[in-house]
């Protein structure tokens, strides 16, 4: 049976209504929430740090190259790196990367629980499985994303600060001056709003693909791939939408 776009949208929202039903035993949920913050959030810190340092460094070199004309002040390198990180990289690009890491993790975990009847097992006990399994993940990821964003901006700038002077395209004082030029705090507000939306997508969409898997290990793998692709498309779509609504 081929299932269309609207079927999935409908089932996704009906899953969400189960996810946000009143929990039966809040103590168990709180315990689960801390586990998920640790598992999904804290375990993502290193990859965020490493990627951000590298991208920050690479962007600095590229801006320096593009702005090599002596008419432009060298401070623009710092400014360009900063705004790219603030507006797009540390929110959208990071969300795309996290969709690959966190998203596929969520789909395979929930999908495996589905095909090995662990979800049936919860349902038989009378546990609302959608809520018990998915709610803490959504809350954990939405909660952790703004922190990852701020960290990514910080380490991206650090990467620029280390790389730029090292390869001799910009001096330390120029770069530091540059990142303070024409600074709009609203960029951060805007990006944090995006992060909250992306956090919701990166957790709930892969959870959907895992929760409704049918078959065995092979199908779980396929569902993970599908989840990542669909999450990425949705992230880009919402990026466009939010940028249009909030920035222009």
């Amino acid at each position, binding site marked *: 049976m081929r299932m269309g776009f609207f079927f999935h949208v409908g089932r996704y929202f009906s899953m969400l209504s189960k996810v946000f039903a009143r929990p039966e*035993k809040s103590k168990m949920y709180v315990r689960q929430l801390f586990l998920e913050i640790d598992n999904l959030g804290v375990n993502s810190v290193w990859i965020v740090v490493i990627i951000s340092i590298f991208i920050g460094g690479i962007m600095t070199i590229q801006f320096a190259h593009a702005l090599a004309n002596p008419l432009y002040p060298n401070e623009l390198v710092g400014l360009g790196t900063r705004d790219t990180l603030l507006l797009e990289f540390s929110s959208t690009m990071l969300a795309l990367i996290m969709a690959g890491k966190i998203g596929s993790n969520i789909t395979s975990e929930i999908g*495996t629980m589905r095909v090995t*009847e*662990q979800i*049936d*097992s919860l349902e*038989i*006990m*009378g546990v609302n499985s959608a809520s018990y399994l998915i709610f803490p993940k959504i809350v954990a990821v939405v909660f952790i994303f703004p922190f990852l964003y701020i960290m990514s901006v910080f380490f991206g700038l650090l990467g620029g600060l280390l790389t730029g002077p090292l390869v001799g395209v910009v001096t330390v004082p120029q770069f530091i001056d540059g990142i303070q030029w024409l600074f709009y705090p609203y960029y951060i507000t805007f990006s944090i709003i995006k992060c909250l939306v992306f956090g919701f997508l990166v957790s709930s969409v892969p959870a959907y693909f895992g929760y409704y898997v049918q078959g065995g290990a092979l199908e779980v793998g396929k569902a993970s791939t599908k989840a990542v692709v669909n999450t990425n498309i949705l992230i880009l779509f919402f990026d466009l939408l939010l940028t249009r609504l909030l920035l222009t």
Partner: protein
Amino acid sequence: MIDVKNISKSFDGNQVLKNISITFEPGKTNLIIGRSGSGKTVLLKSILGLFDIDEGEIWYNDRNLVKMSNKERKLLRSEIGMVFQGGALFDSINVEGNVRFPLDMFTNMSGPEKTQRVQFCLDHVNIDRKAYKLFPSEISGGMQKRVAIARAIALNPKYLFCDEPNSGLDPETSTVIDQLIQSLTKEFQMTTIINTHDMNSVIEIGESVLFISKGEKEWVGTNREILDSGSQKLDDFIFANKLYAQMKKGK
């Protein structure tokens, strides 16, 4: 007691259960047997309410599952224990945690009371204290099934369901599991329903046997009567194994 009356179930026009009626009595091991794909799991899950049936009634003593509100269903679920085909232990939780899970979720027992109950259940299935901290992936298939049984009886259920509890186990371990389920059924006077396609189980613990073929009830009886059922389909199912065919001739 569970009374199933004229239930039917289909998926997208494919009728899997056809007008099945059967009574399962407490204190007995009630078996549902049939070929793979004959509808055993669908029947079990329909009785449990995991699938909504198209027609019929399912009575748990004097309560009809079909007419129950969500709240009543929840209450009923707390009286049900289930052992799934693969054990379905929560693989992120250790042995002890798996048995403790339903207690955490549904009781207001104190910590020490829970610990005591967990030990009681695991003792009943002969799981050693040394295994308490192991994770499901670290123990054998037979042990996983025993832990699954311990988890299923944690809340002292009135009804116990087992879907192919012996699948993937060697014959000796299978016998251990069968006898375990039977003795627990007697001890706690549960209404136990077991899906199986294992003839050893039928001979061993088949106090009441329902044979279904392509979703239809074909025969009901005990393990003593099964060789003289008079049903060709049942004979074909049983004597697919040559040894049993010889047993029948030489009996």
